[in-house]
């Protein structure tokens, strides 16, 4: 994986000089690699997440989740999510080791039974906690998870953006393709359109309130997903990002699930 990344980096530096010579596929990949490089080195992070689920009639229901993530070089990241509300699932914890190509390793902790359950991760397209976000939308975005095609550069509001099309490599993905509007300064997405297996527009995700942490890493305050087919929507509101917490693999093992409070 590392070797491939090095190759891509040299491809990227090449692209800076000879952008005109690249095919749209090469240019798309080069942009994805650059975005990945710029978001490398954050180490570990914690954040609080409020999830607001809205049905067609506008009725809301809320979930509060604390999350922590560990950057893993050469593989996908590790993440642990702890549910604080709704009260009946309080203390439920979800551990995930993401991988670029092979299936993620996932465990669920059920506090009432004290049971740690290994769960199948094939269900990438399934909804996360009854929301409009699928598991694959929530997991770490590795370069190798997609193939890319640069479409055009344009303006989105006041921002200069690149527009990429990306195609999931995993055949179990719920999408045929996604279209990403990425900010040319931050190299972070501002908008993503998701096309379902029949290639019709399923969802639109928009990002708001990016702030820079550690003078380097951009994180949004809010992500809004609208499902065009069922009229439901889900907002994710992020609070209290913190970095350099000194987290290690030990904070992301099966034992840590049981004492996730």
């Amino acid at each position, binding site marked *: 994986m590392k070797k491939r990344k090095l190759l891509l980096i040299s491809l990227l530096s090449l692209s800076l000089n000879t952008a005109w010579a690249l095919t749209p596929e090469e240019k798309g990949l080069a942009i994805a690699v650059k975005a990945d490089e710029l978001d490398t080195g954050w180490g570990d992070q914690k954040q609080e997440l409020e999830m607001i*689920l809205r*049905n067609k009639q506008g009725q809301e*229901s*809320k979930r509060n989740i604390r999350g922590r993530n560990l950057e893993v070089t050469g593989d996908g990241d590790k993440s642990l999510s702890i549910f604080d*509300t*709704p*009260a*009946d*699932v*309080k*203390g439920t914890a979800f551990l995930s080791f993401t991988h670029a190509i092979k*299936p993620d*390793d996932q465990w669920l902790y059920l506090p009432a*039974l*004290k*049971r*740690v359950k*290994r*769960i*199948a*991760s*094939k*269900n990438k*397209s*399934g*909804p996360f906690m*009854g*929301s409009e976000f699928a598991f694959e939308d929530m997991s770490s975005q590795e370069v190798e998870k997609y193939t890319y095609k640069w479409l055009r550069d344009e303006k989105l509001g006041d921002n200069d953006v690149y527009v990429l099309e990306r195609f999931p490599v995993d055949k179990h993905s*719920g999408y045929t393709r996604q279209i990403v509007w990425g900010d040319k300064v931050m190299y972070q997405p501002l908008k993503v359109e998701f096309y379902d297996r029949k290639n019709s527009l399923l969802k639109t995700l928009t990002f708001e309130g990016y702030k820079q942490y550690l003078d380097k890493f951009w994180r949004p305050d809010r992500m809004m997903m609208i499902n065009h087919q069922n009229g439901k929507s889900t907002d994710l509101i992020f609070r209290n990002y913190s970095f350099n917490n000194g987290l*290690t693999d*030990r904070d992301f*093992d*099966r*034992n840590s699930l049981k*004492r996730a*409070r």
Partner: protein
Amino acid sequence: MSRLRATVLCLLLAAALPAQAVSWRGFVAAQERLFSDEPADPRQHGNNFSVSAQPELYHEWADGKQSLTFVPFARLDQGDDERTHADIRELAWGYVARDYEWTVGISKVFWGVTESQHLVDIINQTDLVEELDGEEKLGQPMVNLSLIRDWGTVGLFVLPGFRERTFAGVHGRPRIIPRVEKELTRYESSREQKHVDYAVRWSHYFGDMDIGLSWFHGTSRDPLLFPATDDGEIVLAPFYQIIDQAGLDVQLTKGNWLWKLEAINRDGDYAKFRAATGGFEYTFYGLFDTPADLGLVMEYLYDSRGELATTPFEDDFLTGLRFTFNDAQSTDALLGAIKDKHDDSFLITLEANRRLGESWKMSLQASKFVVDGLDQSLKSFAEDDFVQLELGYYF
């Protein structure tokens, strides 16, 4: 009495802690059981109401390295004095270091992977008056050291103090006939409930395989039941023997398949046997283009004692359907049937849950016992088909 004192002490301790450092959660629930038939024993109650509560207090300090957990539980039951009971599910101090963890006090531990029964899970006694499925457990006093290594986790347990299994009382329903009389409980060890038990478990995962190996020496959690008389009435007297039990549990997670196996070898002066549960769960994701999933569960239950087994499951098949709706109310339903291979008797159960609003949960359970044949173990329950409705408030 000493338990009451411990409870009071812990409550005082909790009150002394700064309020914001202590986190609370828990539930209170009301439950109604509805029976369709007259009871087999006229002393058993009819429809039955009960309420239960389980608050949970948690405090951590030293940057989360140390913690105190207190979880009392109590149920008030309209018809059954034995089901009206209280227990300390947890009252334990925890210490977490980089490569080891301590748990000292009353706590709860789960081992295993299968759904139909939990052969390997032996640390905690079953609180059988709560639910017939055996999922509810009593708190167990323990000193537990877990060593966390690259090659897995080794859990070392010293278990002072034995907890007797709870059984439905004279008026209780559903219950086994003849009833179990706890006053007649006997032990193999002269130290009785004071016998100190030991256990070791190694668990790890390799890619898509999760594995556990365990060994236990001490008082068997499931008693042998011997016929006896109590004031001229024929009853069953529990006898707890000393056993050595080795256990293995494995799960393979492959795409839509979960392959599961639990096996035990039990050695004691009064019962030597092997038992196993094995099978799979296959999940159809996004059923009919909806967000709902359907899981098909099949497990085979084996016990080398055959018809002499202390469980009704000695050569049986479980077939189950698990519906997960993946909606905002987390609706799910599990429909299961366990059938003996050599007999036409079977047990059908349905369990369904749905959240109401943000803090309420509605649960439905139904059991139907179809008794047709020689299998004595289910026969007691022939008249005990029931539907159970529970409404819980979670905080």
